[in-house]
């Protein structure tokens, strides 16, 4: 499959009174046509900043893209002027934000909010745009679209508003849809509906989705590939099976271990001790080392490079170095792996290859 987006060595910083906050420190990944890439990580890991940089939504100042390329169909978005970016944003790349309560304009009818993009990018006239807006509301599963197109956001429930936000994002058939925690504010049953909707739409429109979340259950549900971020870097990336059934990075182990499965009873959860580092002064070496019980001495000196596990699976941990001591993942994580015929000892999972 061809790459629709290539991010290369992206660095994003914010200049604050306290100094420079290095929110994203060298992120590289690509996005293929029609796939869903999930980015997971704790708050402050830089996952939202990465995607906002792609959509060029970082306010500047204080933020700036310090280094790196964002190649979208061969064009470097990082170098575009705001005027040029406006031709792309909302048309080729659109964003669904986390909070449906605040991402709609309360003083505008929702129809008008959907029509905005259509009239600007597709040069539709008012009546055509309205027709298309009603179609879109139908597409996202909002009943009585004809009447509701003339209603205001406060007349909708949270799940319905998120559907409206999705309709706006889809209006111009974007090639890339960035979904920044689109279901975090919603109840599980509504979340399930929205996820089904997004997958359904993806099937119809063949758009690529970057899905940000910290809920690993949601990741397992929607993602084709997963990137795990920590302290402004991608620490592990692979297919969804590789990340869940053959994780290599201790941080990924920690994330998986801290989620209860429905059959673990008595054993306590594997919590990751401590809290994420202060990005005003990112630590020397591996930023995860202070919270990592598997940390080696070299972690305090040198940041690990990406080690290749398979053609699609990479992890940044010195444990994968040929001289590193052999380390077994914690029991809670191994159990997950075992359930699927993987003892955790084999270096490469074959599951993701099909």
């Amino acid at each position, binding site marked *: 499959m061809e790459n629709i987006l290539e991010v290369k060595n992206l660095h994003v910083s914010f200049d604050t009174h306290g100094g420079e906050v290095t929110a994203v420190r060298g992120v590289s990944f690509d996005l293929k046509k029609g796939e869903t890439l999930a980015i997971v990580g704790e708050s402050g890991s830089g996952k939202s900043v990465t995607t906002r940089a792609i959509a060029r939504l970082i306010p500047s100042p204080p933020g700036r893209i310090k280094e790196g390329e964002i190649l979208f169909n061969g064009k470097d978005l990082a170098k575009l002027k705001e005027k040029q970016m406006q031709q792309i944003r909302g048309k080729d790349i659109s964003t669904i934000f986390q909070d449906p309560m605040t991402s709609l304009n309360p003083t505008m009818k929702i129809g008008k909010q959907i029509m905005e993009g259509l009239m600007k990018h597709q040069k539709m006239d008012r009546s055509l745009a309205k027709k298309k807006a009603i179609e879109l509301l139908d597409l996202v599963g909002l009943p009585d679209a004809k009447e509701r197109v003339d209603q205001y956001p406060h007349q909708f429930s949270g799940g319905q508003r998120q559907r409206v936000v999705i309709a706006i994002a889809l209006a111009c058939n974007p090639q890339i849809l960035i979904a920044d925690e689109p279901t975090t504010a919603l109840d599980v049953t509504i979340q399930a509906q929205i996820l089904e909707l997004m997958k359904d739409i993806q099937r119809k429109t063949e758009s690529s989705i970057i899905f940000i979340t910290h809920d690993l259950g949601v990741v*397992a549900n929607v993602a084709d590939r997963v990137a795990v971020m920590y302290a402004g870097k991608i620490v592990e990336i692979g297919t969804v099976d590789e990340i869940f059934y053959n994780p290599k990075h201790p941080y990924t182990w920690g994330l998986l271990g801290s989620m209860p499965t429905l059959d673990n009873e008595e054993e306590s959860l594997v919590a990751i001790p401590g809290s994420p580092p202060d990005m005003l002064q990112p630590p020397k070496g591996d930023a995860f080392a202070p919270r990592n019980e598997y940390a080696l001495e070299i972690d305090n000196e040198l940041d690990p490079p990406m080690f290749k596990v398979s053609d699609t699976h990479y992890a940044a941990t010195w444990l994968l170095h040929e001289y590193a001591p052999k380390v077994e993942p914690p029991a809670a994580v191994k159990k997950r792996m075992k359930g699927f015929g993987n003892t955790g000892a084999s270096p490469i999972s074959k599951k993701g290859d099909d």
Partner: protein
Amino acid sequence: MSGEKLLEVSNLKQHFKTGRHSVVKAVDGVSFDIYQGETFGLVGESGCGKSTTGRSIIRLYNATDGDVKFKGVDVHGTKSHAQLKMFNRKMQMIFQDPYASLNPRMTVLDIIAEGLDIHGLTSSSQERKARVQELLETVGLNKEHANRYPHEFSGGQRQRIGIARALAVDPEFIIADEPISALDVSIQAQVVNLLKDLQKKHGYTYLFIAHDLSMVKYISDRIGVMYFGKIVELADSDELYKNPLHPYTKSLLSAIPLPDPDYERSRTRVPYDPSQLDSSEEPEFREVQPKHWVLCTTKEFEAYKQEIKQ
């Protein structure tokens, strides 16, 4: 679990007037018991009345109707000042939002010691300070943290301060209203482990209110599922997950995504359709099997009994 009833809630109702003629029945006839030393989980979607139930139990609202008995004593009845104080000491609450539930102008020392002061539990400022430092260490913070202000802490640390505050007055029963939903996954596990450890050491009884079903399953001994102000199903947590009977419970369970891609590929969601329920009579709360209660009509009751035998 010693099998002794610590809290008895019977037919609790909490109605809010929202206009001259409209009433929101947030909690509409809820009954359950909580036993000494257990963790009782209350789950449901937003707006189902689970938080209101918790808040009515601890008297943050005056109940519209029904009884809440704590160790056999009615909570909502009129009480003398001294009785009320004693009751307030034995029942404590941990709130959802660790950012909004700590006074930003007070030091951690004063926040945690507020309960100690009100109940006169310490006699000197040294003792007060020592007790707070001890509590901070219990919840996994440093004693040096006592002189700082809430804004200097992360979400997980703040929630620990909230827990220390609840523990300060030596309670028996703690209502935790979504204590982890504002926290990151890795921090959630820290807080849940802390709550479990404290229970093991001190024998606390918890009412754990949450919408994250997998976490509730993990921490609770028994679970009640709420829908529109009523408990629709109540059972031991294993039983509830293995043999859900009420269609709403089934629907809710089928909607949880689990961190397992193979499971996710095969999971099918069961939508909930209240019109499928038997409406020939007013449903009642019935015991389908020992310790497994479902809100149902007589007809459904028989059907559920059949279902569970299979």
